[in-house]
């Protein structure tokens, strides 16, 4: 499999060509990068692209209807839509500050779902 990956580590936006088998975690070729960070980014993006998911959850008994949440670490890119379904089910109340854990080991990703906004 060959994939063109637009590098986002700096504004240059290099197009990096990665070859291999992502299912096996195998990389046979990587070209077009202009720095080490770019190579690392492209290889990770090829094997297992990760994203921080952000959204908001419903509040109860608060002055504001929503509070912002995020995953404490990046989660697999292809889990984002499924994760949203879980986020939609959550309601929070009480005092929250950024970083407060709402769901530990969110969907088994190892990352927590944490508050990213505040609730007084």
């Amino acid at each position, binding site marked *: 499999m060959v994939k063109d990956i637009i590098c986002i580590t700096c504004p240059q936006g290099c197009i990096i060509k990665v070859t291999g088998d992502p299912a096996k975690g195998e990389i046979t070729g990587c070209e077009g990068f202009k720095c080490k960070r770019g190579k690392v980014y492209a290889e990770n993006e090829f094997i297992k692209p990760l994203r921080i998911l952000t959204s908001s*959850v419903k509040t109860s008994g608060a002055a504001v209807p929503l509070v912002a949440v995020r995953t404490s670490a990046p989660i697999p890119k292809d889990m984002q839509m499924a994760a949203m379904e879980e986020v939609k089910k959550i309601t929070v109340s009480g005092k929250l500050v950024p970083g407060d854990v709402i769901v530990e080991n969110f969907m088994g990703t190892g990352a927590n779902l944490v508050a990213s906004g505040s609730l007084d």
Partner: protein
Amino acid sequence: MKKTDVVIIGAGAVGSALARELSKYKLDVTVVEKNADIGGDSSKSNSAIIHTGYDAKPGTLESQLVVAANPMYDEICKDLDIPFKRIGAILPAFNDEQMEQLPAIKHKAMMNRVYDVEYKTGAELLEMEPELNPEVKGGLYIPRESIIDPFLFCIALAENAADNGVKFELATKVIGIDQKDGAVTTVKTDKGDIECKYIINAAGLYCDEIASFVGKNDYYVTPRKGQFYILDKKTSCKVRTIVLPIPTKVTKGKLMCPTMHGNMLVGPTAEDLLDKTDKSTNKEGLDSIAADVRKMIPNVNLRDSITQYCGLRAQRNPEGLNIDMYDDLKGYVNISGVRSTGLTNSVAVAKYVADLLIESGMKAEPKTDFIKTRKGTPHFAELSAEEKAELIAKDPRYGNVICRCETITEGQICDAIHRTLGATTVDGVKRRVRAGMGRCQGGFCGPRVIEIIARELGISPDEVCKNDKGSEMLKGFVR
């Protein structure tokens, strides 16, 4: 079934003026309006000018009524607490051909008894209007051409009528008229029938369709589209008067003038259409405005436009303002051919129709308790510092600025919602107190206005409409 003496169909300028005029008498009056708010269609999208009638066709009913209406505005606007300014119009000529047309225009003004039209030299016009094309050779000055807030005008007339007992059935569409023994009996609407003795068709653009319910549609109405630009109050090139072009055989042309609130208005186009619902602007039309107005005001900066809109004038075929009663259909008044002079002549049409009805035998005893005046929502931004402080002390909501472009407070928005015939929609708030009328066009205040309307009316935010039903601002909730 509801019962009333008089049904007025349409709550545009003419319908609203009629409602107020008839509310001076001991009559039960009901206004039926298809839109969710006062202001009709053409009455809210026009050049907002109160004309003198200097250029009307002499001897016509339209010219008589426009000329008669203009002097009424000082008192009406004072009574109804709405802004009105006699800023005057100029008609500059830039070449010999145009100069040669001036005497005929002035003569027509004399025929219409608009005697205060004056010649001006090029130098005089440039002094009055420094942004004019310096090639101006001379022109005419029409001092009583004036500007008004067209939204507030209709709303204030209707509010005052309602305060004097007139009922308004909004978002109600007339679907038929019943008659019996040569007289009207009932107005049928999509919300039920209303039994009545008199029906006045003030449906403007749709007056031919209403007339067809009683077979009096010996004419038809086509829309004539007019597109406009509104420019930022801080635009680089402004005019002080209404700058009118010398008309050509084809069109009255495109003008530039200040609005009541200090913006610049540039337009309109004149495009004959068939579709009465086509309220879309288009690039060709807007571009044509630019080209034409630059001939008079070379530095007009249309990039400072904050919005563009279009209005539909009701073009009667055959043309001309007609107000008719019929021997074979008692109680029915048909008003047709109200076009660009309609905003101006509405108040005269109202008096003319009232007189016609009384002459025809309608029992109408004047009220002794008619409330002549209306107090508008405070114009917070225009108040002195002391007045502002006083208002906030009385009602802290006046200290909460919601629309920052126009400095409109929560207090004003709540007043607009809770007053007689109050706003129920985002456009309704905007037209009453100008929240969202400024340069950010509701970008900042829009989300807040939705919340305030929902809270004050006790409805869900996703029920709040821009204007008519079906124009909901939101599609449910996120969570």
